Every structure is written in C-alpha cells, then in structure tokens.
C-alpha cells in the first residue's frame, strides 16, 4: 500500500484505503513530506476562478432572462441535481447501489406537502423537517445494507421504491380521497419584493443546491470521504486500516437520503404537487437520479449537476421532437442514454477531465504535475462504483 506515484495521471489521490497521513510518509524521501495535494498550476487556478465567476454571473442573471416556464424547468434540473448528488455520495463514492432513492424523495415531498396542507406550515420551514425525516428513513435502510451487498442491496432498495407509493396511497388522503396533495399556489409566494414567484423558487433551489454541493465537496475531500472511497474499493481492507464500516455505510445512507428528501421537498415548490397515485412514479424517479449521476459522471462533484441538466434538457427536447408521436419520446430518450454511455463511459465530467488531462500533458510535456482536474478533486478510479460486483459469479 503505497501512494500512487505516477505524475501523469489526472489526480493522484490514493484510493484504496490509503489514508495519506500514514501512507504518504514511507513513500516520501526521508525528512521531507510531499504536500498532500500538490498546488495547482497557476493557469489552472486562474481558469477556475474565471469559470467560477462566469458561472455565478450566469446563474444569478438567468432567472431574469428566461420565461417563468423555463425558470421552472431549470429549477427542476436543480432539485434533480441535489437528489443525484445524494445518490452519488452513496453509489458513486461509497459503492452502495441504490434504486430506491425515489422513495426518500417521496418522503421529503410528502413531508412538505402534509405539513403545508394539513398543518399550515410555511414552505421554507418544512425543508429541514423533510431532510431529517428522509434521513432517518435512509438510516433505517442503511442497517440491512450492512449485511446485504451489491445487487441484493440494489434489489432491497428497488423494493423500497415500489412500496412507497402503495404505502402513501394507503395512508395519505388528499383531496378526493387519493394520495395527491396540492398546496395552494399562494403559499409559495416570493418572500422578497421585486422577485417574481418563479424567480424566488429558482433562487431557493439554487442556494440550497450550492450549499449542499459545497458540503458534499468538503465531505468527500476529508476523512469521511476517504473512508467512503475505501469502503467502495475494498471493504475488508478498509476495516483493517481502521475505517468504521457500519458508521460509514449507515451515515452515508442517511446523508444521501436526506439529500433526496430535500430534493423532494423542493419538488413540491416547483411542481406544486406531491403525487403517489402512479405506482411506478417513484421508481422512475430513482432511475432518473441514477441516470443523471452516471451520464454526468459518477464519483465526481460536478457530475450530478451536469447530468441533471443534460437529462432535463434531453427530456424536454425529445418530448416534442416528433409531432404527434409523443409515445416515442421515451424511446428517443433511452437511445440517447445508450449513446451517451457508448461515447462517454465515464460520464460527461469524466470525459472532459480525461480530455483536459491529455491536453495538459501535451502542453507541459510530461512534467510531473497533476493534470488540470477541472473543478473536482476526487479519485479518478471511479470506474467501479458497484464495488463488490463480481460476487457470485
């Protein structure tokens, strides 16, 4: 177990449970300890700042430029990216495949809707409650995950997604006796003068998304993140170097579910509905999250956001691509998914990162510098999120 020392790779963070504090020391020359994270080259740093500022300006100006309908769609992409990020923490970084995140999303959505419709809460106050409740449900699901792994776990979570709408339709009664809640439109009104309702909704989503993405970014770069990656890559080895397996898994499950719950809560604001009448709706949601994560780039920070926007854009453009043949939209959508996986097996962010690394290597010769690893400093070996996949064959 030594620090990977190839200077050409895009990122050189150890992946396999090598906690740098212990592993870096023997690999380094005596007396000097290499910095944990080599400083970025100046052009990369400048490029990052420029891109960051430009993106912020675009994000802040966008709601005033677009129509309310488009703002709604962008907000959908924002809450979708939060949920995909949650799944990414669990599946991308920790290697626990879940097809049940739609259920956590639903818990969040119904928490918000019930609190608003039946108890008269204001929308903004329900978000933390939704996060905590879905986090608790996630924690409960995390315990079987200590025993059940790989595909079996995927199946357990699948069961969750199938069960949720049935449970909801049995125990939730909205208008007309069906499990469908619609908080009044006025309750989502803008809290700031000068902002229209759709713009306000957009900013709520944007702020929460940014906060949660920064949180995730910090998390995966720290001790917890290394533990997560270690669990993904080699569970047994991780425990032998002192990773708390149960804590990591259950904690990640809870956090990941809380992300999905927040996304569900926000979806009530954007879509103005919490609906459990369609028995496979939450399964479809789970699939959406998974798709957004994989096409964006699993185990990257920007991946889920890129994937979510790509997904929403694709869906929007496949919907009315063929006049009068709307039924074909899922087929085009499915074909597009397959095409993306063909062309960019590591997702969009993974592909861009590889491209940049190649360009960087060409321009600076084979200098022992890490390539410009775009905005996310995470281990590159994200190709095997389903950690223990080969069991049973």
């Amino acid at each position, binding site marked *: 177990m030594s620090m990977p020392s190839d200077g050409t790779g895009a990122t050189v963070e150890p992946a396999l449970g090598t906690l740098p504090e212990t592993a870096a020391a023997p690999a380094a020359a005596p007396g000097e300890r290499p910095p944990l994270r080599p400083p970025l080259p100046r052009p990369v740093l400048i490029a990052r700042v420029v891109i960051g500022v430009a993106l912020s300006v675009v994000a802040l100006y966008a709601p005033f430029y677009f129509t309310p309908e488009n703002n709604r769609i962008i907000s959908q992409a924002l809450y979708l990216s939060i949920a995909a990020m949650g799944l990414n923490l669990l599946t991308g970084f920790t290697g626990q495949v879940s097809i049940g995140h739609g259920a956590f999303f639903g818990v969040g959505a119904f928490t918000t809707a019930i609190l608003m419709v039946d108890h008269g809460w204001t929308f903004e106050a329900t978000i933390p409650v939704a996060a905590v409740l879905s986090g608790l449900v996630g924690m409960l699901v995390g315990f*079987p995950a200590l025993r059940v792994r790989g595909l079996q776990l995927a199946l357990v979570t699948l069961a969750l997604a199938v069960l949720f709408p049935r449970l909801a339709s049995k125990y939730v009664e909205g208008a007309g006796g069906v499990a469908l809640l619609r908080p009044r439109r006025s309750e989502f009104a803008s809290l700031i003068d000068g902002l229209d309702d759709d713009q306000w909704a957009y900013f709520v989503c944007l702020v929460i998304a940014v906060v949660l993405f920064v949180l995730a970014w910090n998390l995966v770069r720290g001790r917890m993140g290394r533990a997560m990656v270690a669990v993904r890559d080699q569970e047994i080895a991780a425990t032998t170097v002192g990773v708390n397996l149960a804590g990591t898994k259950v904690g990640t499950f809870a956090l990941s579910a809380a992300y999905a719950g927040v996304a569900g809560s926000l979806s009530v604001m954007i879509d103005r509905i919490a609906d459990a009448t369609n028995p496979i709706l939450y399964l479809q949601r789970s699939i959406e999250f998974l798709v957004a994560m994989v096409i964006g780039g*699993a185990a990257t920070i920007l991946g889920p956001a890129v994937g979510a926007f790509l997904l929403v854009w694709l869906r929007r453009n496949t919907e009315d691509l063929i006049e009068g043949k709307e039924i074909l939209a899922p087929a085009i959508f499915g074909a597009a998914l397959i095409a993306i996986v063909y062309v960019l097996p590591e997702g969009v962010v993974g592909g861009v990162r590889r491209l940049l690394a190649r360009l960087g290597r060409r321009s600076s010769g084979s200098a022992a510098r890490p390539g410009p690893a775009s905005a996310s400093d995470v281990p590159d070996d994200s190709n095997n999120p389903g950690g223990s996949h080969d069991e049973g064959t």
Partner: protein
Amino acid sequence: MQLFVEQVINGIGNGLVYGSVALALVIIFRTTGILNFAQGEMALFSTYITWKLASESDGFGLPIVAAIGVSMAIAFVAGAVIERVLIRPVEQARSPLNVVIVTLGLFLGLNSVAQLIFGTDPQLMPSPFPEGNVELFSSGGDAVVVSKDTIGLIAVLVAECILLWLLLQRTNLGLKLRAVASNPDSARLQGIRAGTMLMLGWGMAAAIGALAGSLVASQRTGFDGSLMQIIIVYAFAAAALGGFDSLIGAVVAGLIVGIADALTVQYVDALEGIEVIVPLGLILVVLVILPNGLFGRRTVERV
C-alpha cells in the same frame, strides 16, 4: 380449507411466472454478471409479437401454440443480437453502472416502441389452454376448483424448468455455458467460444421471457404496456431471494413469493393495497439473515 388450497394453487401459478422471469434474470446474471432491467420489457415485446401472430382480427391468425413458438424463436435471436450489439461494447468499459444504464435505456425504448407499433389499447391474447374449470378433489363437501388455464400454465412452466435443467446439467452445451459463467477466461483457454455462449445465454433468457409473457397475457382479460411492471418487480425479488446465481433458487423463490402474495391478498385485509409488502418484507428478512439468498453460494473474498 378449500379456499386455502385454491389460493395456494393460484399462488403457484403466479409464482411460476415470477420464477420463470427470475430464471431469465439469473441466466443473464450468471453468464454476464448483469442485472437486466430490460428483461420485463423484452418479454412484453415478445408477448406483443405472439399476439400479432395469433390474433384473428388484427394479426395473422396463427394457432396460438405456433405463435408462441415463433415468438420465442424471434426473441431468442433478438436477445442474442442485443447482447452482441448493445451490451458487450459497453461491458468492456468495466463499469457495471454503465451496463445498468444501457438496460434502463432498453427498458424505456422497448416499452415505448411496443406501444407505438401495437397501440396502447388493451389487447386480448388467445389462450393455448382449454376453457373451463377442473374439480381437483373435495374436502369436507367443498370442492377445490381450479381453472384449466392455471393448471396448463403450471404444467408448461414446470416442463420448461425441467428442460432447462436438463440442458444445463446434462448436455455438452450446458457444460460450456456453465463453464463460461463460472470463469470466462478459463473457459476461453479450454477452447470454448465465450462470446457465443454469452449470446446464447441472452437468447435463452429472452425466449423464456417470451413464453412467460405470452402465457401471463393469455390469463388476463387484456394486456397493455404495463403487463410486466409488477411481474418484473416480483421476479427481481425472487431472483434476490434465490441467491441470484441459482436456477433452482429462482424457481423456488418465485413460488414462495407467489404463494405469500396470494395468501396475503386473500387473508390479510389490513394490508389491502399494499400486499406487496409481504413478499418484499420476506425478502428483506431472508437477505439480512442469509446475505447470499436461500440458494446462493457463499463467496470468498480476497483482499
């Protein structure tokens, strides 16, 4: 008592359907290590083909048994082609999640193309079995009555399982298939064409799905694009319960799920509408106690 027996028999009928689809999942999983989310929609598509071939009014009016046979043959070829064209190139990227995305893309695509070609209205599938009921035996004055449909379904699916078992355990081809499943590289070194075997595995799975789908559709008063949605969930459940690499396990687990479901529907009123919680809860309990399922092999992991 008589009601109980009838429900158990119905449960066995449904359970064999779940078990068959689970068998298809397990065959694909064993040979390629992939969880095929598109299995249900592949079966749906084949079911529509069967219907098109057999229907008197909208189709070619073939006898239903011939129609099922032709449809299974088409499904076999299509399954092999899907493996070669769509799955294998992506699989070489060594990322299981990417293959999952491909099967999900297939799932969406097949469902919508099927509805585009064959329409969204419910269709009626002719039954290959004679109409009417059979009185099995009477217990204390009450006769146990089961429809011939159900008995036929049970007979066909049991025969299918036995044939499959014979194929895998008693033939040269089966030996090769199992060799590839257990270790593709070693199998290649022995001169087995691993790629061909993988295509065969997918073809077999697709054909099994075609049979199960057609038979289920013939039992319903009409089927549409949502035919396989619940069946596939139960089949996944059965595959997980059976341990994912055991063919016998898949069938037994399918039966357990089917019977548990039928009895819950009949006897537990408190769970009306959420009967699905029983098989799913059962699976959760079993998996927590036996993480490799009822029949799965324990895996030794090297670090």
